[in-house]
């Protein structure tokens, strides 16, 4: 019984999700190898090798894997899957894309977005937008699992594990990369930030999101949004916190002009401290907030910025 973890990165940097996913894999109880696939990986490979709990790092360094397209990634994972009882990746848009493909090719179920490991076969995962937590036991001999990284801790460091390269390349001809449009931001990523400030429909338009900038600068916060704000076209979808967006669990979450729909709460209710600013005293967000401020956001946001 051995576990394979697939590392999460963007070719430039290793993502904290990798370490947190390894933390989940450690709880499954078996020796852990990590596969890192991409282009130009030497620096990241040694970073992975020094994450505590990693026995071997397998490096598939080839421009075929640069964009981690699902078709080629799943063929690559499949080619080494015989050695493993557990195949684990983060439930990021990359992991969510190729892992079900791996599961289907192995003819096994996938257990999606686990938030806790009960034992090597049994896991907890949220269903119905986090309104219920299911405990499920896998009956397959091989388990394919994605991990909600925000529910696990970062692993410590160790002296470097062995690094081996995988030279066989699986280039699926089914799809090809066309282009990427990265959202440029100096701020931390939503899923990695220790403070998140999010705006909702109450922000009224996209320009008003600038009111959050000064506060985010002072707190080193990432800026998020509710689905209502995304649907209204105020901000792009990659800022969305919620059931259908990103799941965050920062030390401090500040919800501004967000009513607190079920879908939004599903994405942030595991935050350590929640602050809600809303002029409607009956907004459901106040039921989960540690500190509520019933006020007009346009009055209090500038005050908050200068008070910090």
């Amino acid at each position: 019984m051995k576990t394979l973890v697939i590392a999460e990165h963007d070719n430039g940097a290793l993502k904290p999700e990798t370490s947190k996913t390894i933390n989940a894999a450690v709880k499954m109880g078996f020796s852990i190898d990590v596969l890192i696939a991409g282009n130009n990986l030497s620096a990241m490979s040694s970073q992975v090798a020094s994450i505590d709990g990693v026995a071997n790092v397998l490096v598939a360094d080839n421009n075929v894997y640069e964009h981690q397209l699902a078709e080629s990634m799943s063929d690559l994972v499949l080619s080494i899957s015989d050695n493993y009882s557990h195949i684990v990746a983060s439930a990021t848009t990359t992991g969510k894309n190729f892992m079900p493909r791996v599961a289907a090719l192995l003819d096994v179920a996938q257990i999606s977005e686990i938030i806790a490991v009960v034992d090597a076969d049994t896991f907890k995962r949220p269903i119905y937008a986090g309104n219920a937590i299911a405990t499920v036991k896998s009956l397959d001999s091989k388990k394919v699992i994605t991990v909600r990284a925000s529910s696990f801790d970062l692993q410590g460091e160790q002296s470097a594990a062995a690094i081996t390269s995988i030279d066989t390349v699986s280039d699926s001809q089914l799809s090809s990369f066309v282009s990427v449009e990265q959202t440029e931001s100096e701020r931390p990523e939503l899923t990695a930030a220790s403070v998140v400030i999010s705006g909702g429909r109450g922000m009224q338009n996209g320009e008003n999101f600038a009111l959050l900038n000064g506060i985010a600068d002072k707190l080193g916060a990432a800026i998020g949004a509710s689905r209502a704000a995304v649907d209204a076209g105020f901000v792009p979808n990659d800022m969305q916190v919620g059931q259908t967006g990103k799941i965050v669990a920062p030390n401090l979450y500040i919800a501004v002009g967000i009513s607190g729909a079920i879908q939004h709460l599903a994405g942030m209710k595991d935050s350590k401290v929640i602050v809600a600013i809303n002029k409607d005293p009956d907004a459901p967000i106040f039921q989960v907030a540690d500190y509520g401020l019933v006020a007009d956001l346009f009055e209090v946001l500038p005050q908050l910025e200068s008070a910090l």
Partner: protein
Amino acid sequence: MKVLVPIKRVIDYNVKARVKSDNSDVDLTNVKMAMNPFCEIAIEEAIRLKEAGTATEVVAVTIGAKASQEQLRTALALGADKAIHIETDEKLESLHIAKLLAKIVEQETPELVILGKQSIDSDNNQTGQMLAALTNRGQGTFASKVVIENGKVNVTREVDGGLQTVALNLPAVVTTDLRLNEPRYASLPNIMKAKRKPLEVIAADSLGVDLTPRMQLISVEEPAKRTAGIIVEDVAQLVEKLKTEAKVI
């Protein structure tokens, strides 16, 4: 070109799911049901392809109990040409669903399959990817834009940190994200017309797919509840509490 749209009957997205008192599952007795929101977006996209002259036929398919024909009728009212109901009373997993859909793909040979990226009940986000794997097709998941040209489909995908565009050879599988389109409402005349559109019923166990469970549901619990905190008077008090009480800034 023919487009197949698999859809799912789920709890209405405005309804809060309640856990059964014996913790065996979520209680869906007398709960309002509807088409999964991402499936509505998939149907809408297929109909727009037909309106643009790219698609010639839109086939909606669902897997579930008899009641899920209601959602097929909705799909027909929205503009699908025909519907297929794979009937079963079993609670099936994504892998089973993907295998049953693969049989329908074999039978209908659609050039494009468009599905919702996830259903709001099981929140698995698996079926489209599994179907693509089982039918050896390329996949464009979490689509916010779909363009068909020169025998390929270009799919712009909502990924962490931005947008990625991939080109897939046809036939292909696409899964929808929220911003792909805004679904229309069915008009009353179209709802009436939908009653006369063809709806084929196939028994799930007649398709030769092994439907043995791969997972056992041990229990379903309410998530740990957060208790409401306090209402602060003003910004000064808020900052004070965050500094000295919560110690997070």
